[in-house]
């Protein structure tokens, strides 16, 4: 559906850029990737980095409901009312790609309850290399892999690796310990992705999420550029 298309009736149908009251909705960024690659840790780090300047919320798609949501709550990266868990019936990729209705409800409900938001992060349940987000659900997507699952993953490709708007290669601090060659990963990723960007991160270091946060800030600037609301919405408490 075209992003600038609006409906006359109540409620949005798909990824309409405007909410029913005519205001522009939050930017929606999807984070996908295999189990254990660091999606939830990346979401947590992004929240800590961005929450003072922007109004944020998070939707998680746990396999066993609430596991990731509970982690974010325990880490207190956002107030509880800003984190929603969607249940996926043993098929996390279905909920972000083939039947996005529960996730659309969750993102719309967050904005209805919390008022205008700048950014909603939608984290997929840990899945396989083919899992990507529907354009009906998110505006842009990040695919997170890590060095310890094998440095041949960028070469193997798959829709997540080749088409995600940002590829994140996480846990670079482990590379020497698992025999992962970061140079090979970078050149394989470049071959698979053409001009699409790749970020290497180690979330154990200070401000380790910075390359991802900078990319998110660019996306936010572009998103706000198309709105009547150029300033950030009120910061989260």
């Amino acid at each position: 559906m075209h992003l600038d298309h609006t409906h006359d009736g109540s409620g949005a149908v798909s990824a309409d850029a405007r909410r029913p009251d005519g205001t522009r909705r939050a930017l929606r960024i999807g984070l996908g990737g295999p189990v254990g690659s660091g999606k939830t840790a990346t979401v947590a780090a992004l929240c800590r980095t961005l929450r003072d300047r922007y109004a944020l919320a998070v939707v998680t798609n746990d396999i066993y409901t609430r596991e990731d949501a509970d982690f974010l709550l325990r880490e207190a990266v956002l107030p509880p009312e800003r984190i929603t868990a969607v249940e996926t019936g043993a098929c996390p990729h279905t909920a972000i790609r083939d039947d996005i209705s529960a996730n659309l409800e969750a993102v719309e409900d967050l904005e209805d309850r919390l008022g205008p938001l700048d950014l909603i992060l939608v984290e997929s349940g840990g899945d396989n290399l083919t899992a990507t987000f529907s354009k009906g659900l998110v505006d842009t997507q990040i695919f997170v892999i890590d060095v310890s699952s094998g440095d041949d993953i960028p070469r193997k490709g798959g829709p997540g690796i080749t088409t995600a708007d940002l590829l994140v290669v996480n846990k670079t601090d482990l590379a020497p310990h698992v025999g992962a060659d970061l140079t090979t990963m970078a050149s394989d990723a470049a071959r698979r992705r053409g001009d699409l960007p790749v970020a290497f991160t180690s979330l154990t270091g200070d401000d380790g999420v910075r390359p991802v946060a900078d990319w998110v800030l660019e996306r936010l600037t572009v998103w706000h550029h198309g709105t009547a609301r150029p300033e950030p919405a009120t910061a989260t408490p």
Partner: protein
Amino acid sequence: MSRTALLVLAGGRFPAGDHAHSGGVEAAVAARAVHDSATLYAFCRGRLHTAGLTAAALAAAAAAGHDPLVLDEAADARTPAPALRATARKLGRQLLRAARAAWPCEALERLARDLPGGAHQPVVLGVAAHAAGLTASDAAHVAAFGHVAGPATAAVRLLGLDPFDATAVLARLCDDVDAVAHQAADAAGRVAGEGAGVLPAASSPLLDITAEQHAAWPMRLFAS
């Protein structure tokens, strides 16, 4: 009417949120009441003739053009378990979203305006079927079949059940589904003269009880 519209609406890939719901079979699997294709068959048959019949009649009445607000109240009256009411409205909202995209019309927009919290799924299904040019009997078939297809799919994921066996269970239930749909459509045909009270109110107390318990589980694969 388009016969193919029926296939679109009833198809397992229609994006209306059903894939995350087990129709109660996750709780039944945990209680070891469903553990193979024979017990799956028994579960599906029981659900079909109780909750399935009630839902099919509501869907048929909505497809026949009866007031969805009256039917939504009738659905509430036939759904005593709060967890199942919440599930029915959530699935109703999700189905409405898909139906508005597939068959845009004033009746669906009005339903979205009148019940922003969502109507019961069978009521939305009936209005959507009508919008798609389908009959009351068609709507009853979709509702009845959905009541057995959902648990069968979920059982494959929960038990690692042979998918061919699960599909054979559905094939064996075809005559039952047809009979329930006919019964439901007949009841819907009497609403004009006798009111919504004539619609069946069959239910399964065990499904109601286990749905409430399931909703309180800290860890589960399915939303219901």
